[in-house]
């Protein structure tokens, strides 16, 4: 059992369910801690703060990077991971509710990492589990450790999250990474420049929420038009079936797109890039998407360390 009992959030406990539950202090703390872990990874490795601890990874949907980075993080903290990776072969196929599954798993593990196809599943799991729950993607909902990874990358690329100018391009309507990133950048007063593909624009209520958190939002028709004075270009994947019939083509970021971009502009992508960025960009100083993917490890180390590190 977890040292702090129930894993509910935001009322208490150490669960991480939604970006909406995170205030600026908690984000800054996690990012600072992730930077310490980056240094530790380059040196003697992290302290074994999760020794004799067990993480249950419940993956009801396929995932490679997220699952591997959580497992790697847990191992580097000295702990072990038990995994359900094929939901079809497990309790879901037998008709067991998620609530029952997490109650049972709470008896086997000290924390749960959950990826599930239904929105709100992590919130539900956090209510029923006796141990902290980390949301590793709940359908079209949220994926907060991805957002924290993005924030770490932006902070390191542009020096600060405060007042950063971030161009966000691609599928802004359905892309959950964009939604969560917008909400998080909002509390830092970031300037967002949106370049939606076709009519895949940010939902109006979400735009209002992001503005109300302090972000300014403007739009451009083409990525190149949005780049002057920008710190970050955050390109996202457009799923072809979503733009069928709209006549819209996802814009590919090429060296030509970046020809007049500020020298310090960094290009990010949550990957897989699926045609969103020309491979020729990989070798330019603008490309940070592989560093971004790597940052997933120190972020997950920081998040797990917050759960296991303090045993007082």
């Amino acid at each position: 059992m977890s040292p702090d009992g129930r894993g509910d959030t935001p009322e208490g406990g150490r669960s991480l369910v939604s970006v909406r539950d995170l205030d600026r202090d908690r984000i800054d703390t996690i990012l600072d801690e992730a930077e310490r872990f980056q240094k530790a990874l380059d040196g003697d490795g992290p302290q074994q703060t999760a020794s004799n601890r067990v993480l249950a990874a419940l993956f009801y949907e396929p995932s490679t990077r997220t699952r591997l980075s959580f497992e790697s993080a847990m191992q580097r903290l000295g702990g072990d991971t038990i995994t359900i990776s094929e939901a079809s072969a497990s309790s879901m196929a037998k008709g067991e509710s998620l609530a029952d599954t997490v109650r049972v798993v709470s008896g086997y593990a000290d924390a749960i990492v959950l990826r599930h196809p239904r929105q709100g599943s992590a919130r539900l799991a956090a209510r029923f589990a006796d141990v902290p729950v980390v949301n590793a993607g709940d359908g079209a909902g949220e994926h907060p450790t991805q957002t924290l990874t993005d924030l770490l990358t932006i902070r390191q690329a542009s020096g600060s999250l405060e007042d950063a100018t971030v161009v966000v391009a691609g599928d802004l309507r359905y892309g959950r990474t964009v939604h969560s990133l917008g909400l998080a950048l909002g509390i830092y007063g970031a300037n967002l420049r949106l370049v939606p593909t076709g009519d895949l624009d940010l939902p109006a209520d979400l735009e209002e929420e992001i503005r109300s958190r302090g972000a300014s939002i403007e739009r451009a028709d083409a990525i190149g038009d949005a780049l002057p004075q920008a710190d970050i270009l955050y390109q996202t994947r457009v799923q072809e079936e979503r733009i069928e019939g709209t006549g819209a083509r996802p814009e590919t970021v090429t060296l030509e797109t970046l020809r007049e971009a500020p020298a310090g502009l960094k290009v990010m992508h949550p990957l897989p890039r699926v045609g969103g960025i020309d491979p020729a960009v990989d070798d330019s100083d603008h490309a940070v998407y592989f560093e971004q993917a790597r940052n997933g490890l120190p972020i997950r180390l920081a998040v797990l360390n917050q759960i296991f590190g303090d045993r007082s």
Partner: protein
Amino acid sequence: MRELKVTPIRNGTVIDHLPAGSALGICQVLGIPRPGSASTVSVVMNVPSDAMGHKDIIKVEDRDLHEDAQQQLAVMAPNATVNTIRDYHVSEKRTPEAPETVKNLAACPNPGCITNDEEPVSSEFDVHRNGDGYELSCAFCVERIEDPIELVG
């Protein structure tokens, strides 16, 4: 003086100032009439109203509206008044206040929401002020419902 087409009730509850057209949906949410109840329920719809243009009224004999039901009502119909009737007279008149969260109002309209699966939870919405009324967001999937009355329409 307008004449209502429904006779006064002796004991029970009169729910007044409901948005026109909402009464049947509200009855459904509030469980009116109770299954097996022999008491009369009168629903009057599209009654001319100075304040609202038109309104609906529900009269429920021999039943008081419990607190949870009053809170559900407040979310759906912020201007609703609940009159408790004793011996043909109004013994209490209340405008119920909306709670911070409301349960069991209706299923979450987001088909991808976990609460629409076979899970041991009821629907639950956070209630937010929006002008004169309220808007809701699902406590699980954060789906936004701008006008709660649409949930029960």
